């Protein structure tokens, strides 16, 4: 039996070494190193004042090593941006911008990575308190990379920033501009994947403006235009919440669902929508009114 245990142990160890060596420079190994570096960063990100500089440098070096050792890793640019994030956590914003700017040199033809790097540069200015410089960077994302996720998200982001600062009028203007922008983007990109995202953000803009009627209409259009979307459940939920709680108009939600079922008979969602309609009818009959401010904690 001792011989068997020896052979078994050697076999297991041998297999482990063999499989490890096969993928030593593979993407999986890169993912491990990057995940561990991010884990270390998450422990120090909220305590930059008490974290030694060496700790930040060590984490940045982990990312640097991953970039150097795995030149074929598909997310290498994002690792570069994460490395910049280390310097942002350290509050060394100039160094962080240096790292982000390297993405433009290393990936001159990749708009997605460049937009992410530009957003990251904007964030460094924001954290430094230079909102004008941040806004310039964000507007450049919209103008230069309009079809990327970041390029699309920026108009709404402006509204959120002003709202957070308590500048309600500026926020509302930003949301109105965002709604116009998304409406145009959806129209200009019909049939393309970006149309869906533009319509989602259009709905978000109206909801942020507290224009509940237009918000529900936009959500309804989204549901009717994209019946196969993986976010269909969330869209229905959002329509219910806005129609029931904000508008107190059960008929509006019911009309959207009935249009959907008429347009897409035998859709997998039909069963659920019938139950939702039945629920809305019951709420209407019993005259139930839900006060959003009275939500129990």
């Amino acid at each position, binding site marked *: 039996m001792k011989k*068997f*245990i020896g052979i*078994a142990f050697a*076999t297991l160890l041998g297999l*482990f070494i063999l499989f490890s060596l096969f993928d030593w420079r593979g993407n999986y190994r890169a*993912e491990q190193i990057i995940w561990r570096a991010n884990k270390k960063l998450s422990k120090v990100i909220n305590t930059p004042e008490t974290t030694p500089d060496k700790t930040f440098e060590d984490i940045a070096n982990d990312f640097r090593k991953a970039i150097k050792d795995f030149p074929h890793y598909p997310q290498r640019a994002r690792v570069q941006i994460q490395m910049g994030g280390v310097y942002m956590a350290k509050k060394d914003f100039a160094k962080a911008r240096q790292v982000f700017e390297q993405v433009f040199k290393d990936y001159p033809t990749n708009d997605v990575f460049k937009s992410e790097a530009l957003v990251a540069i904007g964030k460094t200015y924001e954290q430094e308190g230079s909102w004008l410089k941040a806004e310039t960077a964000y507007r450049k994302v919209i103008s230069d990379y309009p079809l990327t996720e970041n390029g699309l998200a920026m108009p709404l982001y402006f509204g959120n920033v002003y709202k957070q600062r308590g500048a309600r009028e500026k926020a509302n203007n930003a949301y109105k501009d965002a709604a116009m922008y998304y409406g145009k983007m959806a129209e200009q990109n019909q049939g393309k994947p970006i149309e869906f995202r533009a319509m989602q953000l259009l709905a978000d803009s109206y909801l942020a403006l507290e224009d509940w009627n237009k918000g529900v209409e936009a959500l309804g259009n989204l549901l009717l235009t994209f019946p196969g979307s993986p976010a269909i459940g969330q869209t229905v939920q959002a329509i219910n919440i806005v129609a029931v709680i904000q508008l107190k108009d059960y008929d509006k939600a019911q009309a959207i669902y009935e249009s959907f079922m008429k347009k897409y008979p035998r859709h997998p969602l039909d069963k659920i929508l019938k139950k939702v309609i039945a629920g809305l009818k019951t709420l209407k009959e019993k005259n139930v009114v839900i006060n959003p401010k009275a939500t129990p904690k």
Partner: protein
Amino acid sequence: MESTKTTFRDPITLVKTSFNALINHPIILFPFFVSVFIQLVVLEFLYFSARFPLVVFFGPIIRRLWGEGFLHYPLNIILLPKLFYYAQLFVYIFIGAFLTAVAALIIRAINNERKITFQEAVREAVPYYIHIFTASLIFLGTLKGFYAVYDIIFKRALLIRSKVGIFGFIKAVLVGGAPYYQFFIAILVTALFAFLIPVIVIERKKIFAALIENFKRLQRLFIIVFIAVFLPMLLYIPVLLLRNSVSSSEGITLPEIHVLIVVVGVFVTLFIDAIALTAVTTLYLADSEKT
């Protein structure tokens, strides 16, 4: 090994005797070590399933069943215990149960003061492979059946809205104790079929005759068998507690700890199975001599 002329009325003595038998006759552990080795090889393959070259085979399966995310670190490690659980079922059906039968034959030989090698015991058990295979399916099917019943009760308990009073208490007991009820079900089903494999290979009975014989003996010996299976299974509680505490502290632990817990579980199960089988087989042999 202590002669089976001693009748085992006391399950604690039975378990103690079995433990001593394992120490004095470590060859009983050999089939279990083989089973552990096979399981660890399978675990290694699954551990590397998200990496080249194994990802070529496992990738499409994992992608289809769980999504692309589980082919990347660390989600592949989080998925590993679940993958290993399904793999263990296959290992048990095709080889684990057979190795248990081999161990039962070794115990019988030792009890009769006859020398036996692992290879001889395997040769003796091979003609009954199909019956042992069927026995393992019956065992797992019954276990799944009990789990399904508990699942229905659990889901019904979740619907209870009361937080106080009798219904609140029922909900707290049924929902809070879920891992322990599943653990108890495993002990119960193991006890219900405790004699099945020993009867197949020692009395050389076919599956249905062996089932009848199993339940006949169980009618007289169920309490002793249940306790003899229950006591070694208590060794698994620390593994359960460790697994639950790691699951609830996902944010601070290294993902590899899930793999470590699986490996610890495999070794703990080796000893549980060895002690439980030795106890049950010894009881069976003593009962056979008596009757």
